[in-house]
């Protein structure tokens, strides 16, 4: 399946665009997405943390993904 990942902050800078399309097997989970993007962009592994938001909610490693989900990479936040 083809997932569109929304990128913000330093992940946008590292990947060089604000949306990134990744191909994953149907039923893939958050953990597989993270492994895939870290393989393509090893710099992401150097971040203090990297979370995934699915439909505007922080997702667990085991959360399954679908093409209809709104998916975003969340590097360490620093608001305030």
């Amino acid at each position, binding site marked *: 399946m083809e997932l569109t990942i929304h990128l913000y*902050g330093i992940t946008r800078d590292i990947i060089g665009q604000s949306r990134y399309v990744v191909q994953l097997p149907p039923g893939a989970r958050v953990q597989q997405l993270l492994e895939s993007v870290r393989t393509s962009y090893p710099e992401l592994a150097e971040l203090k943390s990297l979370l995934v938001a699915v439909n505007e909610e922080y997702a667990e490693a085991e959360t399954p993904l679908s093409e209809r989900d709104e998916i975003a990479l969340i590097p360490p936040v620093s608001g305030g």
Partner: protein
Amino acid sequence: MIAVTDQPIDIAACIDAVQAERAGAVDVFIGTVRNHNQSKDVVRLEFETFDSMAVKKMKELAEEASRRWPVEKVAMVHRKGVLSIGDVAVVIAVSTPHRNDAFEACRWLIDTLKQVVPIWKKEIYENGEEWLEAHP
């Protein structure tokens, strides 16, 4: 009033928004852009936000604060885009019947906002820039 905005934050509007007859105390936190951070001279700042999720998370925080403390009303507004020294980045106002709850709820809200709300701060220096908190 819970929002992310690219316009200057209206502090008075935030305070007005938490007025309540039963409230005897309002605590307001105002975060501004310092000219100095960890011995680097900051020229300006950029906030990037995942708007819809940021507002959703801020609403969740306001609800959680209202469960933990006897809160009357909460206002939280975060700025996005380019900010200069002295500009207001965030305003949180909390009204409660008694003052200790206002201080505690307001402090918890800003502490937790900084941990969970998807907003990213980039500091721009004379020679370079940096996304804060990104690396260990």
